[in-house]
């Protein structure tokens, strides 16, 4: 079954082409510059940068992160310098590379989102936009993605504001992701990212205190992989648009599982904390899997699972 040609790794999300099916999870790879000395950024499918909001945000007080069994709980609180700071300080560095940039955009209301989307579109400082309608660490952050109507409203408002590919990032903190995925698609999203983190908390029994200053945090890492895989599988059954699957991906095997579940591409989040170059190693591992198993393209693997 071995084929000798090099398997085709590129994938498309709307009008955006990624050279490899692996991007970075927003908030887990900074703005690329931080790790450019460890990683050849041009070998990543796309760099999805930290959330960039209309105004600067200070973020939550410490403690912001804690390790849990096979996971990490974070409550960063979307610390960022705001869109103007992104355009002036962050985008120029990344633009020295040929890697596509996906900018993650949070907001308090649809107009907030659309404002940032317009600035990104006009400035040319993004190749695609990920709408973060599912952040569990700021008040009201996650409400959008738990309600199909609100999801549609944010996506539709932003759709009118840009021709760039729009990716809606959905929350796992729902009973059924399908109606929400469908609502995002119908409102004009070009793709979906899932999952964002799972809400949780951590308690210090000795001190009788919550460990996170924010009390609530978002769980990521291997612990949530089974949860993420199911949401991706279900969403893929419900929509036609491509899905970027994420949640606990540490290895190429994990990534293949997401592709089989129906994701067209994957993102690595928490894994980059251990190995900043993991996105590249996973791309290589996917290529090896494709070769070993006789697939000519990564697309052939997407959803290729018996139910």
């Amino acid at each position, binding site marked *: 079954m071995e084929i000798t040609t090099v398997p085709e790794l590129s994938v498309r999300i709307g009008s955006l082409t990624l050279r490899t099916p692996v991007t970075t999870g927003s908030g887990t790879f900074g703005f690329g510059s931080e790790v450019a000395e460890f990683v050849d950024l041009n070998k990543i499918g796309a760099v999805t940068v930290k959330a960039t909001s209309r105004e600067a945000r*200070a*973020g939550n*007080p410490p403690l*912001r992160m804690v390790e849990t069994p096979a996971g990490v709980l974070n409550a960063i609180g979307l610390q960022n310098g705001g869109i103007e700071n992104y355009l002036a300080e962050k985008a120029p560095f990344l633009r020295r590379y040929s890697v596509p940039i996906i900018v993650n955009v949070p907001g308090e209301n649809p107009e907030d989102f659309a404002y940032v989307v317009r600035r990104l579109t006009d400035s040319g400082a993004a190749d695609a936009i990920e709408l973060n309608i599912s952040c569990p660490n700021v008040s009201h952050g996650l409400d959008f993605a738990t309600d199909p109507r609100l999801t549609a409203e944010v996506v539709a408002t932003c759709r009118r504001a840009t021709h760039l590919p729009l990716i809606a990032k959905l929350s796992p903190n729902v009973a059924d992701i399908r109606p929400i995925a469908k609502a995002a698609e119908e409102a004009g999203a070009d793709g979906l990212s899932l999952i964002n983190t799972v809400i949780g908390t951590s308690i210090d029994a000795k001190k009788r205190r919550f460990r996170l200053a924010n009390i609530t945090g978002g769980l990521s890492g*291997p612990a949530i992989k089974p949860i993420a895989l199911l949401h991706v599988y279900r969403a893929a059954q419900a929509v036609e648009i491509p899905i970027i699957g994420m949640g606990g991906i540490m290895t190429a095997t994990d990534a293949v599982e997401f592709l089989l579940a129906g994701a067209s591409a994957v993102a690595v989040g928490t894994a*980059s*904390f*251990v190995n900043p170059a993991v996105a590249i190693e996973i791309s290589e591992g996917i290529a090896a899997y494709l070769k070993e198993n006789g697939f000519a393209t990564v697309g052939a693997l997407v959803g290729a699972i018996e139910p």
Partner: protein
Amino acid sequence: MKLSAPGHYVLTFDAGQKMASAVKPGQFLGVAMDTGGMQFLRRPFSFYSADPETGHASILFSVYGATTAQMARLAPGETLDILGPLGGRAFTPDTRPGAHQVMVGGGYGVPPLAFLARRLLTADPDSSVTLINGARTAEFLVGTEGLETLGIHLREATNDGSRGTQGLVTLILQEILEARAEHVPIHIYTCGPTPMMRAVAEMAMRYEVPCQVSMEVFMPCGVGICMGCAVERTDQTFARGCTDGPVFEAREVAWK
């Protein structure tokens, strides 16, 4: 590997000449051990030494949890999965002539200070360096081996009086600050448990003496991409402990 005191290990490894030359006191590295996966983040450890000639570097650690337990079991010749040198801002030695360099350390804050002290003496054998080491009890006073023979003035404090002064390191620091001479500039470098560093920082500010603190907060990534290592500044913004630090000026930090 060498046992430096009950439960304390010095782990020497081949960092390569490039890393060993680049590393500055206050910088650290991230160690990943295969602990079966329940715990998978790297753990930060300060450089205790780095020899540009041999390329050897070392860290000093005690067994706290899964990672250090595994590290203690390493056999000579095994490979170590490290990321580094990390740390955007290391200790900056005070270059004022004749300055009295005073280091105040406790626990795993001592290794980077011992490294700094050794580097200062190597650069200028006439440097005036005092290292105040504090611990609960004598057996936890570690990391200062060989410093006195280099000419470093070692002072020790234990809560129980089992070695050195009975009481906190600030007792000794205060004594030094009180006795200071007009013409001898003093510079404080501190690393250790937060309450200790806070007391040292506040004393330094009271005496208007410059003070660098190494904030050893929890560091999930160590490279600046997770924002999990927030250190609050007095202007209420949050710095990253890893790449904006770990060393800060005492005045920059919002002590609470």
